[in-house]
């Protein structure tokens, strides 16, 4: 960048949110095309590919995360209204829930307790710091909810966001194999497990298997977002009193 004109343009761009916002959308567009071309292989998850591309770009151009987030925050902000929007599929699937409300309620409460309890317990056993334990605790809830809970219980919200995305991908990749090994046959049970363990990324995968599994997964994701927000802060208090 010896040309003074180019340098001026770079100074303008790196201080403006325009660049961060644009590269986020371009990277996601490319990643999504790659995902479709791989026949929706769960390993080519568009979140992973676009995050990798963006991090590489920021490191190469020596741009800080804060400068990038000036633009990225406009996309990030939409997680709030998207959480509110989950009420719509939840309402539309409400009639399916009537018949199964008792099994769904029991599985949901157990699932949320197991997700948070096992991640805190395992991280503690393996020597993870308290901050890591708290950042892992809400990882199975959808990202905006998990970040809100993480902040309240003493984790790092931005680390939780990363761990939540990683959890969703893990669940989406392993889910169907696990159901096969453990002989889970009901689509309702598979869907609920996907939604509870792997939130939105798992739900996207469930829809590829069958629409019934996807519907139950979406339902479980919305309900467990709420259940996690209610149960996890209380569980953390209780576990801290005990140990």
């Amino acid at each position, binding site marked *: 960048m010896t040309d003074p004109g180019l340098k001026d343009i770079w100074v303008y761009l790196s201080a403006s949110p325009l660049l961060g916002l644009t590269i986020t*959308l371009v990277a*996601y567009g490319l990643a999504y095309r790659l995902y479709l071309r791989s026949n929706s292989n769960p390993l080519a*998850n568009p979140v*992973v590919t*676009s*995050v990798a591309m963006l991090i590489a770009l*920021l490191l190469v151009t020596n741009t800080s995360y804060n400068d990038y987030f000036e633009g*990225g925050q406009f*996309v*990030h902000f*939409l*997680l*709030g209204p*998207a*959480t509110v*929007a*989950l*009420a719509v599929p*939840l*309402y539309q699937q*409400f009639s399916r829930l009537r*018949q*199964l409300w*008792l*099994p769904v309620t*029991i599985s949901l409460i*157990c*699932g949320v307790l*197991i*997700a948070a309890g*096992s*991640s805190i317990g*395992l991280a503690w056993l*393996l020597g*993870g*710091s308290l901050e*890591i334990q708290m950042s892992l605790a809400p*990882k*199975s809830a959808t*990202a905006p909810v998990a*970040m*809100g*809970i993480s902040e309240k219980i003493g984790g*790092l919200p*931005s*680390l939780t*966001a*990363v761990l939540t995305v990683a959890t969703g991908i*893990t669940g989406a990749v*392993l889910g169907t194999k*696990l159901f096969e090994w453990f002989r889970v046959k009901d689509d309702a*049970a598979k869907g609920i*497990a996907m939604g509870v*363990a*792997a939130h*939105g990324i798992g739900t996207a995968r469930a829809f590829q298997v069958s629409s*019934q599994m996807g519907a139950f997964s979406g339902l479980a994701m919305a309900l467990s*977002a709420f259940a996690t*927000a209610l149960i996890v*802060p209380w569980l953390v208090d209780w576990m801290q009193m005990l140990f």
Partner: protein
Amino acid sequence: MQFLNGITLLLVYQLVGEITVRLAGVPIPGPVLGMVMLFITLWLRGRTPDSVEQASSALLAHLSLLFVPAGVGMMAHFDRIADEWLPIALALLLSTVITMIATALIMQLTTRWLVRSGDSAPGGPEQ
């Protein structure tokens, strides 16, 4: 205009949720309370207005895009993740696997025990 109305409504519910959570001091994220309030509204009205339907499917269709800026935040945590990569990776993997299996088995068993076979629930008792 429909889409704009829908987005506005979602933001209004989020705003009311955020304010209520702060006033009441409850440990629930504001958008989650907004979601519950919107759900109750839809339930009482008995249908989803087109505007809300449009805005919500547009947002949820690209839900994974919304995770990207947060995911890039990983670069701000490289050091911490490098320091504690083993507990992080193992706890995340094992806990996700355990949760997935346990939830599926609990749901399958409780459905068989608690839902009468005459109701023929989706994928009900078969064996």
